[in-house]
């Protein structure tokens, strides 16, 4: 069959592959952020396609806060084993030594030290000149105007005033020594695109996305899973088993679960179509302060 025009998913896939190849061809030390979630899983799949039959020609970097769901770490290692990519895991050593955690230090400080600062440390240590991330423009208002190749100065800061215009598919990949680029190959995908692509391509995901009986507590309207014994129960609080799943994955004490019976991909997609709340609602990190995503980005968060 000769197809003369591509479907929207085929077009998005091709665009992302082109971006990934441009990174490999234009930078000396690229790295791909790997957060183990669905967007990362799509990114990993696209990278395998972009360079096939070669291996992915750059390492994948996981910033491990040590508070991820246990299953995420197991899944991460299994993927590295299965697809043969180089995996780098980094934890902020000072944060670790000082036992920085979301219970004692609050989500904002915890995120700053264990995520933002840790990411900067890892990028500096690897002297990476390009860091590929899975952010999408439909996620949040401040992302809607983010470039696909987003320039960062030597201290990893994003200066919205010096954003480079991006025309056609001609990406300006030039940087000076010490500067770096953040690259977002799935900028133009929506959440629904990600899910339908996962379904169409049979991409593996951690089971946390599927509804299972899990031990949760409810705090100010948010369901938090008690993933290990470090969780601090408040007086009188006991975890109860509920049928829940997660729409995004992160640090388990900061990630809200939703009550759901969707145990398969089609069910998740159908439920998502029927659901009427936005994706980031379950991420406690964004509602910490007003304009927080914008601020985090300027500080170097993805």
């Amino acid at each position, binding site marked *: 069959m*000769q*197809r*003369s*025009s*591509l*479907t*929207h*998913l085929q*077009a*998005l*896939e*091709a665009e992302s*592959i*082109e971006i990934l*190849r*441009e990174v490999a*061809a234009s930078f000396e030390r690229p790295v791909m952020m790997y957060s183990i979630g669905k967007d990362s899983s799509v990114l990993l799949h696209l990278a395998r*396609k*972009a*360079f*096939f*039959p*070669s291996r992915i020609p750059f390492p994948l970097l996981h910033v491990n806060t040590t508070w991820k769901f246990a299953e995420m770490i197991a899944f991460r290692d299994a993927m590295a084993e299965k697809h043969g990519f180089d995996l780098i895991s980094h934890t902020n050593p000072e944060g670790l030594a000082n036992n920085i955690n979301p219970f004692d230090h609050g989500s904002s400080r915890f995120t700053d030290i264990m995520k933002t600062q840790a990411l900067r440390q890892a990028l500096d240590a690897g002297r990476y000149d390009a860091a590929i991330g899975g952010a999408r423009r439909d996620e949040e*208002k401040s992302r*809607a*105007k983010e470039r696909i190749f987003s320039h960062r100065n030597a201290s990893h800061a994003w200066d*919205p*005033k*010096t*954003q*480079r*215009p*991006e*025309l*056609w*598919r*001609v990406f*300006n990949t*030039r*940087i*000076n020594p010490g500067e770096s680029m953040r690259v977002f190959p799935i*900028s*133009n995908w*929506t959440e*629904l*695109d990600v899910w*339908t692509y996962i*379904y*169409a*391509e049979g991409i593996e995901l951690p089971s946390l996305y599927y509804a299972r009986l899990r031990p949760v507590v409810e705090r100010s309207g948010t369901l938090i899973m008690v993933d290990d014994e470090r969780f601090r129960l408040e007086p009188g609080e006991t975890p109860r088993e509920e049928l829940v799943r997660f729409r995004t994955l992160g640090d388990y004490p900061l990630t809200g679960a939703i009550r759901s019976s969707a145990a*398969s991909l*089609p*069910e998740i*997609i*159908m439920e998502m179509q029927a659901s*009427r*709340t*936005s994706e980031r609602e379950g991420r406690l990190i964004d509602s910490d302060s007003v*304009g927080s995503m*914008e601020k985090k980005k300027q500080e170097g968060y993805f």
Partner: protein
Amino acid sequence: MNLPLRSADTDVALWLQQQTDKSLLRFLTCGSVDDGKSTLIGRLLYDSQMVLDDQLASLKRESHNRHVGDEGIDFSLLVDGLSAEREQGITIDVAYRFFSTDKRKFIVADTPGHEQYTRNMATGASNADLALVLIDARKGVLTQTRRHSFILSLIGVKHVVLVVNKIDLVDYDSDVFDRIVAEYRAFAEPLGFKTLAAIPVSALRGDNMLAPSPRTPWYSGAGLVPYLEAIDVSEDRSAELFRFPVQWVNRPNLDFRGFSGTLASGAIAVGDEVLVAASRQRAVISRIVTMDGDLDHAVAGQAVTLVLDREVDVSRGDVLSRQGETPEYSNQFQARMVWMSQEPAFAGRSYLLKVGAQIVPATITDLKFRTNINTLEQTAATKIDLNEVATVTIATDKPIAFDSYATNALTGGFILVDRLSNATLGAGTIDFGLRRAQNLTYQSFDVNRDVRAAMKGQAPQIVWFTGLSGSGKSSIANLLEKRLTAEGRHAYILDGDNVRHGLNRDLGFTEAARVENIRRVGEVARLMADAGLIVLVSFISPFRNERQLAREIAGDISFVEVYVDTPIEVCEARDPKGLYKRARAGEIKNFTGIDSPFEVPTAAELVLHGAEQEPAALADQLHDWLGARS
């Protein structure tokens, strides 16, 4: 991508199949906030049910006391956020919005139009298949409408929908609509849009958005959304000439060598013969590799890896085509530029040019004219300022493969990049190659530089002095020349003032003239060094770009940049020619250090501190340094 039909969820599977098979339409919206653009986009998002409950709840709260439609919502709040952005000092440029219907997925490039409209619109238009041109029915066709439409035609957007908004505010009057449409059609005629539809709407009230409105019985066309769902914008790029820019050489092991890239246009099949544009070498496609298995055939837009049947020299930036259908291959072309930087463009200045995967140094050789985007008038120009459009000729350091933008946007659209800051300065669309360039080759003679240098017993080089007026450049150069001459060497001083009396008599002191001044001196210095001389150039040369240009003109000749670093207070106190005094009095304009900048060298081979030592000592220091170097 064909989905397996899973027995348990046939309905879901069918629905998903429909999702994956949707086509994609990228469009941009032109018009200012006053035309109701935000309301229109907000309405599109709302009608396609992209607005979620949590957003809707906060929206209804915020809409209180505002301009609301029947739904009690101010739709513009969905996309606005602009005032907040302004407060945060964020550049307001292109924002991308997404929505989808049962038939299509849409990506909207939303380009707020007030400031830097040309730059933002060109950026948004570069990836758009279609544009919505918004008009306020009460105001009709404005200068701004014309400006937007010209930029659309410049970037080559082929399909336009004229959205005559706020039709409710003119009492749904068909005469108003007809008058606006007639006026616009007359204006847009020469712009060559392939399709042009006009729809009367009220974004606020929803008229002719999803379905024909009963309030406009005189309008028989489709609503905006059905129109966008149905319009065929496919260019059938697969039917065009085959172009494959090689992006990345795929070499996992010694047994496999493939060329990864995306088909810019055309189609290719295993067994087809291809030609490398630069080397004119031919080969046959032996495999089309993807992770999903080999293909026998690939079309425009697909990202694949091609394997050739024989060893040919192909690397990133090469363009594969078919024999007899090759792209142009030249080092000169005419183009239209949209300038996007505060720093103006000048003829003679060196930039980096990127087209496809090719990056080469390039110079604007001629600024033919500037086009006034409001009146379409063409006027002479010596520079291109931010948001201006100009027609130029460009020369690249080596030949590149390209097509005219009109035939292929992906192989005919380019950007110019600053060589020091790496900022994207402008975007260009190639009109045509200048074949003249291909016939112009360098003559090579038997007596060459090496022979002449050997006769003189010296290594030719260019010593380029830069620094403020009065810093001591000429004094040091003079002393150095004396020492070299005493040693029996052949040196020559090119001095700024002296050259301006002769060779560069026609040049003034504007930035454009300064660029040309340095270019000529750079060329003369190179010729003299080629003749075997040691050339001492004593020029203020305040701009990094021009010093870099001089260095590039020197090519393989040794080039030493010497920065005579003397504080301006010292130079001004010396004032050997009384120039500072006159500049301070306002008698001389564009005087370096007073009202024109001096960009401190960051790549100078040697820095001499003019305030700390006498010229003789500095000349000695330089002499020894040069001696130790050779």
